[in-house]
């Protein structure tokens, strides 16, 4: 079984085909940036993009993602290593405390900015309130999304 992850085809060894997409990404494929938080779809820590949509990888079987484009936090930066504006904004605002939920937060926010380049506070709350952060970094998450949105609107080449 093959998965299309972060722009390349990855072979999934046999015993892993029956696992959740989250486990398949983390264990055999080594893409450990996506985290396990609950396995119930309650917390958003495991969000990845599937065909551009934010999805909770703990609720999907690996086989559900066959033939679809999967992007994880490891695939968010440009191929040349330049950070996605959200990743940069996350560093600039020093959002992370423990850091565990942050990949899911960033992937959820990236999907928001892809569909809404200038989200207001309500749009941010509507998109992000399913991503739990026990450290309470929410105010900075909000600020980082605003900062990244401004960077994106300013266009490539502009820096935050």
């Amino acid at each position, binding site marked *: 079984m093959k998965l299309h992850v972060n722009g390349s085809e990855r072979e999934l060894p046999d015993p892993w085909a029956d696992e959740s997409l989250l486990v398949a990404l983390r264990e055999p494929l080594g893409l450990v940036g996506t985290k396990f938080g609950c*396995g119930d779809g*309650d917390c958003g820590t495991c969000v990845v993009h599937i065909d551009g949509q934010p999805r909770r990888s703990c609720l999907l079987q690996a086989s559900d993602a066959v033939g679809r484009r999967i992007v994880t936090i490891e695939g*968010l930066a440009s191929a040349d290593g330049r950070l996605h504006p959200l990743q940069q904004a996350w560093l600039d605002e020093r959002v992370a*405390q*423990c850091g565990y939920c942050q*990949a899911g937060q960033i992937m959820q926010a990236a999907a928001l900015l892809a569909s809404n380049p200038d989200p207001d506070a309500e749009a941010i709350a509507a998109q992000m309130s399913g*991503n739990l952060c026990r450290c309470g*970094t929410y105010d900075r998450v909000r600020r980082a999304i605003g900062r990244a949105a401004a960077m994106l609107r300013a266009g490539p080449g502009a820096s935050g």
Partner: protein
Amino acid sequence: MTAATTQRGFTRRGVLIATGWTAAGLTVAYLVGRKFFPIFPSTTDPDANAGAAWLQVRPDGRIAMLCPVHELGQGSSIALAQIAAEELGVAVADIDVKLPNTAEIPAMRFTTGSQSIATHARPMARAAAALREALRHRAARQLGVAPAALTDGVAGFTVADGRTVAYRDLVRGTPVVLDGAALPDAPLYTFDSEREHRQVGRSATPLQARDIVTGRPVFAADVRLPGMAYGRAVQAPLAGARIVEVDDAAARASPGVIAVVVDRERGFAGVVAETPGALAGALELLKVRWDRPAPFTQADLDRAVDVDVALARGKLERRIVDDELRAEGPWDIDLRLDLPVLHHAAQEPRSAVARFTGNGEREIVEVWAGSQDSFVNQKKAAAELGWPAERVILHTMRVGGAFGGRAIYDVVREAVLLARAAARPVKVEWSRRDEFFGDRNRPPSSHRVRIKVDAQGRITDWWHAVVSGHVLLSELLAPPWLLPALRLAMADFGATRGIQSHYAAARRRIEFSDVELPIHVGQWRSLGATPNNCAIECAVDELARKLGRDPVEFRLANLAPANARLAACLTKVRELCEARPRPAQPGFGRGYACGIYHDHSYVAAAFDVLVDRQRKQIKVLRAVCAQDVGLVINPDQVRAQIEGNVMHAIGQVLMERAPVADGSMAARRFRDYPTPTLADAPEIEVALIGDTSNAPSGAGETALITAVPALANALRDAIGLRAARLPVPSADFPEPAI
């Protein structure tokens, strides 16, 4: 369930002596097999010279730092690097910070009580300054000048004639070794408040920040080893519970299972499987029956800690302050407040990876785990195996949120026992169900605060009675067989944290009982300080209202002497609040609170809320916090901690209560235990104030002790609701008067 309300007095000490343990200080032990090995939590503060083991200059001139504190997201690692950078005249980015393993660093104190900077700042500064001076002497020899002729440069020194020498030119071939027995005294730039600081007092990029946003491995569960299998144990419902019956036939036959491990003596039952999915399937089939606790209800827990029930039987177990109170006259305020069981609900499930290598006497086990106490995990794992501690190497990993819940030996034990049984490297990652069911919860507590004032509104008589479940007198400090004796011998000094109020009163009675509960209990951010201060600050707030006094002015007038730093926090918070006029909007409320955490950290907080009574909705608009923790090494990290405490306060006041159902703790997933989300986050304003010549004190939990009562007081201000218990669900709000 034992309602420990009887007078025990000296008999407690007698029991402890009878069991061979004296109550002088705190004696603890860990039970392994039939032998007793005393294994203490790592409570020892680093001594003045400890920093010698934390720093070195590499041949390329870069500084390497072994981080002597566990990194839980509180940011202490980068703050300590800033101190080293300040002393050594380098950028923080020029210091390579490593979370060490137990073979690399002599000791680490457990990372609890917001003490990392308070206890490590000076040893770190001393070591870095000694390193700087050793380099200066070496440079002086190299250049043929007196050491005093060399002034500090960037990662090196300069001479008046313009010559410079870089650290990298000084360490080629010969490493700089510090004598840890006696570091020479050198000027400490960090603590020189006259000096313009380049690193200390500024923001810096936290450790692993880039790894986090790019998805690099930093947590224990991110570790992958060749041949690794996946394991997990069945969580016991209570510390010390014994296995009565195990049905493991179906689990053994489940596909992908490598081993089913049942060890009744250890109270351990677990599974190792080829994949996480196979593991989960087998664990569903492994049936374990435990000898305790008996089924209980929420009403049982409420009754166990009910302060009025306890007081009706007479004095509580401990009179912590026991003045003779004035008998005449009614109490001006008599307030009851009950606080619930809380879960930690950290985002990262407990995880550990264990791998055995080598043979016979040379066999070792390496463990990768994030905890608040690497060394106690190392020592207890070694005792479990009957090995000397050196044969267990524990790699300290970043922790995905601790909040007090990661100081004990739990998941490391599972990984070690399962990896040994399976003869494979094993990764253990708790399920979310395990995280809730096996959580060492904050116990419930029940408070009654009674206050009398004189004609001028000065507090004269103060009575605070508290009944709480245990906090520190738990498996953190002692094995199950010793706990009953410890609990008889002393009051739970975690539950009593912050019980001494910061208000002056001519006469005070402060009394306390701790009770045994049929649930897991343990340490939760700030321990008893938030419950105790919440009761104190709600009562004082209500008293000010009753007397028609301004709540801030009333507090300032009644603070105990020598509380100038606390008064300054309160005054600053009021100033920040009043910078915006109170809106005339119905349902608007503003509440204040203040407090002192761990004797040295001063804080005041305020919340603005807007309550829509018709819709029974509450919006937390704004949180304001002024904090004086002396010298602040990294202001942005302290702010971040305050922001986190604000969110925890919103959870505690409006949402969080661990559910009980079907005779036991009932939360199994996040949906069962709602916590704040981004939609609940208010605007947060923080002022870090105070004299930077004061030593740094704890900042990680400090704001919580005031944020919780300030929000409760804001609800009182908004809609007249004086909460008798937390949380206050909006459904409980009173209907509009008209």
